[in-house]
């Protein structure tokens, strides 16, 4: 499995240094994704998901963003040590990104064919004509008629625009696809279509995907692996089965408690109390401690490291409570 590793992030720390404060957006995370697998990065708004994604392309706006520590290896090459020119070769060719809002992610004054062809032309050194032909093929692949390559983005609906954005991202057959909340701006039926399409293309093209979302439903549908992020740290990581059915972290439990359960419709939803901490002023110890129903004195003392869960090779959790072997989450005790 290790040879197939497409993305390997180690101990990444990203801060935004403004005049008023040092915003600690990402505080030492590790992420690995192998070929043909999809990792779902889940977390609230402001947990540092997008910052993580942007640092993979070394696109953090600087200033104020600074990558303080860590390494990002893409297919064995360290992104953070690359020259600007090499980076431009990697972006779009080896790693492609799908942005959140398809409405604004397309240039309104270029036809979609040109926009898809642009990246092909850039990375594969072919003529404009050939690139346009390839762009048409890409459109066909995402389920849009080839003849529409001559149209402008305003002539498309939201779901179709997102398909175009996906076509742009996949145009050069990247090894890694980063999808930053690709379905947030779409309605539910279109969401399903787009996710289905992405899943199918990942398998066809043998890519890896990092899917960033706050929607657990989307994760369940698409991802094999899940990492739960809170205040710039990964608090729980594992396969979808590990995290969805055998969750260990109180924050993960909180996320699931806030979702309606189809089997017990009458049950009251329990939101996580309190608010996400200010990333420029994180609490000492575990960042989740002030909101955690299980928090003890020990939680505020030190930051819990990500430890593997007993009896599992894939499941990791960062919680001090498991030092007590008898501890288990309320949700797990009640049975799912």
């Amino acid at each position, binding site marked *: 499995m290790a040879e197939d590793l497409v993305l390997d992030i180690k101990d990444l720390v990203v801060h935004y240094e403004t005049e008023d404060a040092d915003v600690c957006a990402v505080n030492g995370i590790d992420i690995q994704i192998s070929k043909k697998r999809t990792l779902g990065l889940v977390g609230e708004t402001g947990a540092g998901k997008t910052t993580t994604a942007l640092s993979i392309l070394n696109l953090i706006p600087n200033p104020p963003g600074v990558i303080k520590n860590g390494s990002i290896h893409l297919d064995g090459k360290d992104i953070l040590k690359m020259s600007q020119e090499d980076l*431009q070769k990697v972006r779009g060719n080896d790693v492609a990104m799908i942005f959140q809002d398809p409405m604004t992610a397309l240039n309104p004054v270029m036809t979609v064919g040109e926009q898809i062809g642009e*990246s092909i032309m850039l*990375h594969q050194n072919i003529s404009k004509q050939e690139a346009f032909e390839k762009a048409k093929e890409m459109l066909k692949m995402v389920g849009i008629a080839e003849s*529409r390559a001559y149209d*402008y983005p*305003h002539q498309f609906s939201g779901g179709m625009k997102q398909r175009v954005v996906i076509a*742009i991202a996949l145009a050069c057959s990247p090894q890694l696809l980063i999808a930053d909340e690709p379905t947030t701006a779409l309605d539910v039926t279109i969401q399903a279509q787009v996710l289905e399409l992405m899943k199918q293309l990942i398998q066809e093209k043998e890519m890896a995907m990092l899917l960033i979302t706050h929607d657990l439903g989307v994760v369940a549908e698409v991802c094999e692996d899940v990492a739960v992020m809170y205040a710039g740290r990964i608090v729980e990581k594992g396969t979808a089965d590990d995290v969805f059915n055998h969750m260990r972290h109180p924050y993960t439990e909180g996320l699931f408690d806030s979702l309606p359960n189809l089997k017990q419709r009458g049950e009251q939803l329990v939101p996580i109390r309190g608010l996400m901490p200010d990333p420029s002023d994180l609490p000492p110890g575990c960042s989740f401690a002030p909101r955690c129903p299980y928090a003890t004195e020990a939680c505020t003392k030190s930051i819990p490291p990500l430890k593997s869960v007993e009896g599992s090779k894939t499941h990791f959790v960062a919680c001090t409570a498991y030092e007590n072997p008898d501890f288990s989450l309320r949700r797990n005790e009640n049975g799912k």
Partner: protein
Amino acid sequence: MAQTNSTGNTKHVKKRTMLQETWRHLIRNRGAVLGMLFLLFLVGAALFSPLIFDYEKDVIGQNMQDRLMAPCAAHWFGTDEFGRDLFARVIYGARYSLIIGVGSVFLGLIVGTILGSQAGFRGGVVDSIIMRGIDIFYSIPNIMTAVVIVSLLGTSTVNLMIALAFSCASSFARIVRASVMTIRDQEYVESSYAMGLPTWKIIVKHILPNCLSPIIVQITLLIGTTIISASSLSFLGIGVPAPAPEWGALLSAGRGHIRDASYMCIIPGLAIMMTVLALNLLGDGLRDALDPKLKK
């Protein structure tokens, strides 16, 4: 895919290139068509006037027997105080006005776009330095700047163009900067970075084309303003050197005869006014036609 039918049905959509599309919208706008026709006529006049008139004989050749004749069959626009046919002079004058107007605006456009896009895109210190410099130029009235530059370089058509280009450059720089600043934060710019495009390509291919409509409107408006400025400078005697029939110079010459031969002022004045009006009408029409959001 299953969705192909719903998303791919394009039987009824006719395919047009962007130019055709713009043209179709432009000719629906009466004002723009009127402006365009007048400008075409003017450009034609400017191009063919050397074929119709002999510069030495008709345009600057004096003929004292025919001085100050009112418009008649032989002299459609009358004659001036040296007996020169005003029609020939006004038509020939279109050459000067158009060359100066278009020339200085495009000179200003190139300089202004480079400065404005750098200021808008880079921001920070670069922005401050460029924009404060431009503000200084902007705070001095156009004509004053032009007077100073022309006095420094000497009076000639080219120097006049350079002088007027300064003020054009500052307005272009401001407009381009403002548009670039709104567009550089758009997601499609970010996504073109993620696609691996180099910065200059992003500016040229993604940012500037989106600033195009204010720039185009500004081009047409500024050509008008510049024609007026050029005429003003000629009126003051520091524009195009003397016997050349620049419209402002014609106005200036007619000033002394405004009581007895008012056509000498009215006709060149009308020529200036109609040209500027035509340019403004065309500019408005182009703005509407080029806006992709207005396309149905």
